[in-house]
């Protein structure tokens, strides 16, 4: 088997989907995909430096900037999942009653209920910031805790503080240290979270295994991948929705 390296965000790895896909990829293509599980910024950085062969992240503006800089060949959307709001089981801010995601945030802000922000410029954090802006709020104050950690660690912190937090659904479902937290809000289409696959540019880094990256891409958009991704569930819930366009 040939090795190739792909940097991915923690939310993808923590979901458990990788454990399902990687053995299949190896069986079908002979590629042994080695995952580097890091923050979004670091994932892109590794790609830009030529230390990985492809990246799989979820932060469109950052991805486009990265492509413009000539770091990758192209961007291929693979699948999406969605973000949810998690909070204390008694939902003191009544965020669960909101219609829209922005409404939930407004409720939290109004109640000055503790809210944990990833605060690390990751895809998730950028999405959260967009939502605050959309809700017309510049969050600050004692209740708003920017922790600067990965998804799992931030969930641990929220669990410890019994605070609200925005998470991707997969990380939440896989998360074992829920404590008194529960899912309080979900379903607003604005919360959709697109994952995209980008091979590193072989013109910039001639040593990258571009052929393997292309082979992997072909597999990722295949029907087999579609079946596996759409069929992956946790506690009966579907986590990811395949949406690659097959040209």
């Amino acid at each position, binding site marked *: 088997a040939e090795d190739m390296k792909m940097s991915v965000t923690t939310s993808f790895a923590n979901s458990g989907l990788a454990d399902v896909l990687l053995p299949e990829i190896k069986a079908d293509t002979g590629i042994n995909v080695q995952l580097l599980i890091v923050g979004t910024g670091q994932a892109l950085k590794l790609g830009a430096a030529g230390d990985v062969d492809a990246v799989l992240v979820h932060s469109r503006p950052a991805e486009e900037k990265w492509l413009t800089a000539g770091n990758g060949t192209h961007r291929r959307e693979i699948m999406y999942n969605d973000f949810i709001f998690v909070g204390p089981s008694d939902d003191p801010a009544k965020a669960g009653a909101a219609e829209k995601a922005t409404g939930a945030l407004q409720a939290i802000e109004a109640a000055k209920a503790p809210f944990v922000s990833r605060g690390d410029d990751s895809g998730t954090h950028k999405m959260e910031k967009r939502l605050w802006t959309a809700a017309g709020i510049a969050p600050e104050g004692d209740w708003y805790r920017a922790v600067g950690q990965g998804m799992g660690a931030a969930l641990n*912190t929220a669990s*410890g503080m019994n605070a609200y937090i925005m998470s991707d659904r997969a990380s939440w479902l896989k998360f074992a240290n829920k404590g008194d937290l529960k899912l309080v809000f979900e379903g607003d289409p604005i919360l959709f979270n697109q994952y995209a696959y980008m091979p590193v540019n072989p013109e910039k880094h001639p040593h990258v295994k571009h052929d393997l990256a292309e082979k992997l891409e072909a597999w990722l958009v295949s029907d087999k991948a579609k079946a596996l991704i759409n069929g992956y569930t946790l506690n009966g819930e579907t986590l990811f929705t395949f949406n690659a366009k097959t040209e």
Partner: protein
Amino acid sequence: MSDFFGGIAQAARLILTLDPDLAEITLLSLRVSLMATLIASLIGLPLGAWLAINRFPARRTVIALLNGLMGLPPVVVGLFVYVLLSRSGPLGVLGLLFTPTAMVIAQVIIITPIIASIAHQAIRELWADYHDLLISLGATRRQRLITLIVDGQRPMLTASLAGFGRGIGEVGAIMIVGGNIDHATRVLTTAISLETGKGDFEMALALGLILITLAISVNLVLHTLNRTERGSRW
């Protein structure tokens, strides 16, 4: 390499502009680690000295244990303290999780074995020299301990400084129990982690340089203060 040189420039810029955020996290770093070093020294120095002068059956095992504990992975210590302090944990009512106090507790656990172990090594030598005299003079156990600690000031200082070094550079534990909360529990090392995750290696390296400079300065200051007092050997 450009990240590296960029880091140096960045560090200079941050320091020269007296960046207030930087000042805040630097001070917290110092506060937490100095406090932890103080507490750990109060436990570890006497413990190391005690181990050096007392003979008991399990002595060798205890010392190996202590040395082994030097390898305590910070993350595990962090988890352990988290489990203790979390609201569902036995000490949850104190509400210490995600406070500097929790970070101090975690660091104390990490650096006490280091301080004790180095102190033990040094005091063993001193005890070999002083043994006959102290026994002959009928010094009580307490007096033996105190005498060795007082006369072993220099190696004790080294032990404490090693602990401080370990503490101030530590991130795994304080990340978990402190939470790296902006303006509350963010210190230099957790900030470095954050910048690394963001892919801003320049900033991370800059903070790292500042941290190292800080650690070296504390060492220089303490060594200078300590040496001016006495002669060449002690």
